[in-house]
């Protein structure tokens, strides 16, 4: 008993040093809640949250050993793969915060708002670190629960509807996932999916039930990724939610889910020993996701819904990096994810700027290209990057992930990978249709849009920064790939 206690304390203490960012986030949540009781001014709260996230970002272990540290007796692990994704998640958080600060619509209950955002970030951190089924479930749940609330933060009819749909869909998805997890536990007798026992047990028993259980667990991840067939919630939720939340949803939970999915699928695939072709399963998912996302986006008139379908399609591109099942694929996926964060926020920051002046449909952007040249030009760069055309880093990212896929196809010769390659690239043409719709209305359609004194100076400066980042990453991707290259991907 005595020894147990001292052991526990030693264990916890040895784990804490690599767990500082998460502790800071947790403290930040509590502090923001407390501060909300005393002071409700937007500026101070924002600054406080900003400080929390930045602190969490700078305390991330940047030279973690390649094999990382297993913390809390195998619950989570801190390695440089998770550190990179956590950093990206924090960057997403900071960008969301910038948007939230500029948001003129969400004014109520700011401290709760910010603490919920922080909690999602915390959950995302834990999800990419987890190597235990229980931790996967819990961190997914904390993200989901906070997201349900955030989706309704506009306190409007649409917000409530979005919340309800999100909740019902999410609860079912997590129940399905949980059932799958329980079966996996039954097969292996352990919750630690990075352990040798887990993968050895899975390799021995390759029955249909294992496949079903794997699919069920995937459903949970796909739901967070908004990947088909678990995507229908996204457009409704995005339309009803405040703009910063939409931008946040399209980045942070996705990054966390793709990181965890990547680790998990490798285990599920038993490192190539599985009798079931998980690569093909994911490839099919990616094909459906790309196609559904892009084709549904074609008919959208509301910029938020458009971006919802766009983010579904972009999940498909992220999945392409995972499907390659190659170390390069994962590195390129990280590159693409980084670029995605930048281009996505570039677009959203302007959509919010326009929403603030009262432009809520794409049709109302008519003539904006003449009145507000710079916002539209920067927005155009963002949309071009999302389409994946040069000279933006969006092109580089797509080039990278598709070259990894080509390589995977050359190695394995599975036809489904070739289909993914061809369909993925052809989808780019489809995506052009809707991404160009915004500049089309802004530059080409003639019309009068309401003039407002707000000249979006801040958005322009911020947008310029992101645009430059996209260009720099195109002309010398080595800057970023140098870092990503150092990430050694090991599951155990």
């Amino acid at each position, binding site marked *: 008993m005595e020894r147990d206690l001292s052991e526990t304390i030693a264990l916890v203490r040895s784990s804490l040093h690599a767990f500082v960012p998460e502790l800071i986030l947790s403290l930040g949540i509590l502090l923001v809640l407390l501060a909300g009781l005393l002071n409700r001014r937007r500026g101070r709260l924002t600054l406080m949250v900003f400080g929390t996230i930045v602190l969490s970002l700078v305390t991330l272990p940047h030279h973690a050993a390649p094999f990382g540290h297993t913390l809390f007796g195998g619950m989570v692990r801190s390695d440089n793969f998770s550190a990179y994704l956590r950093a990206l998640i924090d960057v997403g958080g900071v960008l969301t915060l910038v948007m939230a600060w500029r948001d003129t619509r969400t004014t109520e209950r700011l401290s709760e708002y910010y603490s919920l955002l922080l909690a999602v970030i915390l959950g995302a951190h834990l999800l990419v670190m987890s190597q235990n089924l*229980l931790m996967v479930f819990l961190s997914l749940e904390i993200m989901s629960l906070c997201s349900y*609330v955030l989706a309704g933060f506009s306190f409007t009819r649409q917000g409530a*509807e979005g919340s309800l749909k999100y909740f019902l869909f999410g609860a079912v998805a997590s*129940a399905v996932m949980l059932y799958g997890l329980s079966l996996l536990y*039954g097969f292996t007798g*352990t919750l630690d999916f990075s352990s040798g026992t887990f993968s050895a047990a899975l390799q021995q028993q390759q029955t249909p039930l294992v496949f079903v259980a794997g699919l069920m667990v995937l459903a949970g991840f796909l739901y967070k990724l908004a990947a088909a067939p678990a995507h229908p919630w996204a457009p409704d939720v995005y339309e009803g939610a405040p703009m910063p939340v939409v931008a946040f949803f399209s980045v942070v939970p996705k990054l966390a889910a793709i990181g965890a999915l990547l680790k998990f699928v490798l285990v599920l695939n038993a490192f190539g020993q599985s009798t079931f072709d998980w690569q093909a399963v994911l490839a099919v998912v990616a094909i459906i996701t790309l196609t559904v996302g892009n084709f549904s986006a074609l008919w959208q008139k509301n910029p938020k819904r458009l971006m919802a379908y766009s983010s579904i399609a972009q999940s498909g591109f992220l999945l392409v990096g995972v499907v390659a099942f190659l170390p390069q694929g994962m590195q390129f996926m990280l590159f693409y994810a980084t670029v995605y964060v930048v281009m996505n926020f570039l677009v959203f920051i302007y959509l919010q700027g326009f929403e603030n002046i009262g432009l809520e449909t794409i049709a109302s952007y008519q003539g904006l290209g003449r009145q507000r040249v710079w916002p539209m030009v920067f927005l155009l760069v963002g949309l071009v990057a999302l389409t994946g055309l040069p000279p933006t880093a969006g092109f580089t990212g797509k080039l990278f992930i598709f070259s990894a896929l080509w390589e995977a196809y050359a190695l394995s010769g599975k036809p489904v990978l070739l289909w993914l390659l061809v369909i993925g690239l052809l989808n780019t043409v489809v995506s052009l249709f809707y991404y160009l719709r915004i500049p089309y209305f802004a530059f080409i359609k003639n019309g009068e849009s309401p003039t407002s004194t707000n000249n979006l100076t801040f958005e322009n400066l911020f947008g310029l920064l992101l645009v430059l980042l996209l260009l720099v990453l195109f002309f010398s991707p080595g800057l970023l790939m140098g870092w990503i290259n150092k990430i050694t991907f090991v599951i155990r």
Partner: protein
Amino acid sequence: MMFPLQHFLILAAILFSIGLMLVVVKRHAIMMLIGIELMLNAANLNLVAFNQLYPTHRDGQMFALFVIIVAVCETAVGLAIILRTYHFYQTSVPDAVAELSDKP
């Protein structure tokens, strides 16, 4: 003594399927919530039953405990959301709450 594992698992499968059916068939948010509870409990039953196979650790039971906690949180938030929607729409039928959709 240990009861046959298959009994637990089959019961869990039945509960899970019924839960799913409730979610699909019932046109009321609270009934759907009940269906979701059934699905969660099916998973819990699995976890507890499987723990009998691997008695050296308590992983399954611990997982089940955490699932109960999660279920509480989910129900609380879920009901709050249902009430909120009811306040706006005067109904708890999700199909009737449909202002957001792909408009042609």
